[in-house]
């Protein structure tokens, strides 16, 4: 426990210790990811070789080519077998296209972020800046919803989507996910709005602005960073959502999101770990990048949403 301010004369021993600790934590957090990353570049089949190669001796983009549909799955093996048997008949399976779930996930997550931000910013504006009865109660209702497990709402939601004829559509994921993300988004935005100077609003009121105009012309333009960080949470949250997505897509590949598609890939091609690894790298890469780039906001949001109310 040091929390040192000083960075003057640091002993070599201390630097060494700190370096080791840092490396250990990096290894812990990134090690498993590295292994998937390395696997995704291995030529098909070599991922099973013992002892495993820590970095493929012949790195290849084959796995990526397969899951992106550039190369048909089994094409290589078929051609190898074909060569052995002396025939040219290639038994190609239908092409995979992992870009479809990526596209679906992008549509879902973007829509969810936009929807949640819209509804949550209105609610957050009322909570942080307006007076009304039942304010604390409304806040509690919104907040507690964020603590409840999805498994208790999944069946009725499924039934609802069926009766609305929305099963096997992206909308069936978008609408409930907006609701799932409203609690945290509202909270983050309310905290953000509350710290904007009150003088702005008073000045706008004197100029004859009504609340909706103040929200649109004063609060929102000033809250870009807050909206942005709240949006990241809604985006990441809906990107990873699995339970509902798996239920409402009902195995239809065209509407699957990334998490569902990855699980399905592992069911269908359970021995093709290079492909699964490539799919994981593709889908996780974007999320990790977002989280790293907006690290400061992610950390603020995480603490604001759980321990530091």
């Amino acid at each position, binding site marked *: 426990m040091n929390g040192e301010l000083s960075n003057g004369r640091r002993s070599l021993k201390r630097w060494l210790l700190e370096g080791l600790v840092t490396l250990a934590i990096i290894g812990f957090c990134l090690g498993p990811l590295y292994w998937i990353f390395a696997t995704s570049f291995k030529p098909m089949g070599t991922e099973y070789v013992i002892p495993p190669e820590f970095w493929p001796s012949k790195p290849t983009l084959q796995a990526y080519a397969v899951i992106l549909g550039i190369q048909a799955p089994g094409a290589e093996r078929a051609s190898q077998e074909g060569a052995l048997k002396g025939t040219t008949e290639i038994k190609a399976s239908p092409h995979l296209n992992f870009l479809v779930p990526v596209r679906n996930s992008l549509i879902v997550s973007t829509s969810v972020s936009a929807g949640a931000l819209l509804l949550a910013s209105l609610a957050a504006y009322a909570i942080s800046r307006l007076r009304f009865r039942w304010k604390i109660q409304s806040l*509690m209702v919104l907040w507690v919803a964020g603590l409840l497990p999805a*498994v208790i709402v999944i069946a009725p939601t499924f039934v609802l989507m069926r009766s609305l004829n929305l099963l096997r559509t992206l909308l069936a994921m978008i609408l409930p996910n907006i609701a799932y993300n409203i609690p945290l988004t509202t909270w983050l935005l309310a905290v953000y709005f509350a710290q904007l100077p009150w003088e702005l609003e008073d000045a706008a009121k004197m100029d004859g602005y009504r609340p909706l105009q103040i929200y649109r012309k004063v609060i929102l333009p000033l809250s870009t960073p807050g909206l942005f960080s709240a949006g990241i949470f809604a985006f990441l949250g809906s990107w990873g959502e699995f339970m509902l997505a798996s239920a409402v897509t009902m195995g239809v590949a065209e509407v699957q999101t990334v998490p569902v598609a990855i699980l399905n890939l592992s069911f269908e091609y359970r021995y093709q770990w290079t492909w699964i690894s490539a799919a994981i790298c593709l889908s996780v890469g974007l999320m990790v990048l977002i989280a790293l780039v907006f690290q400061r906001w992610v950390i603020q949001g995480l603490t604001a949403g759980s321990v530091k109310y």
Partner: protein
Amino acid sequence: MAVLFIIPALLFVTLFMYYPILQTFIYSLFSLHRTADWLHAQFVGLQNYIAVMKSEAFRGAFGFTLYYTVMTVFFELAIGLGMAIATFSVHPRLRGILRAVLVVPWAIPPIVSAMLWRWLFHADAGIFGYLLTATGLVSKPPAFLTDPTLAVHSIIVASVWKNASMMGILLLAGLASIPQDIYDAAKVDGARTWFRFRRVTLPLLLPTILVTVLFRSLWALRMFEESYGLTGGGPGTTTDTLSTFAYKYFFTYARFGVGSAYAMVIFAMVVMVAIVYVNRVKGNLRFKE
């Protein structure tokens, strides 16, 4: 007037959270199949609950859910606290790197994390099995995901990896919110590192630790993806949680009544922890009236 701003959000949350809870409760009182509409549904009162409680599978899932919650939260806290303290103590430049690194496991969707660990725990070519045999600890790679005891703990390991760094981030924020002057005062007062930690840092961090543990427990109790992705509940039903059972009853066996009874049990457990959690933090939910 102001209420109009909050109504859309409340409406959405009610439609997709609160109202479905009520529906789930009603489902749980019926013998109800997904394919069967309400015409064929039969009111059975608490029959579903009784059947569920009596089943061996439920007791297994209940036990595993509790064991999983206790174990993961404990190890996540221990490792998270260690990482938080380390991150807090190292040179600012290293601290920046570590903070970024800690965010990474959190950013990975749970089901993807489960897939990732399925590869690491692979029975033939998994890196863990290889490392264990290579170091001579075991003669052949253990069946991480197919041996009942090992499967349970493999899931726990994977979860700890996924969530410990998030705990670390939260605890780091707690450490950083203790005024630097307090640490300095303790140093000048003659307190050595361990004494400072035990008598100043730890007690001041305790509220954060408590809230973090409660918060994580809320999520651990509903654990779904880790089991579903890593083992699918197997071998047998040894790693089925209440959530995976509920899900399977809904969407595999199409028995909404039984599934809903499972869901209500999860709900009850989460609510119990949530009440403690909410009471602990609601005092801080303050906005200008």
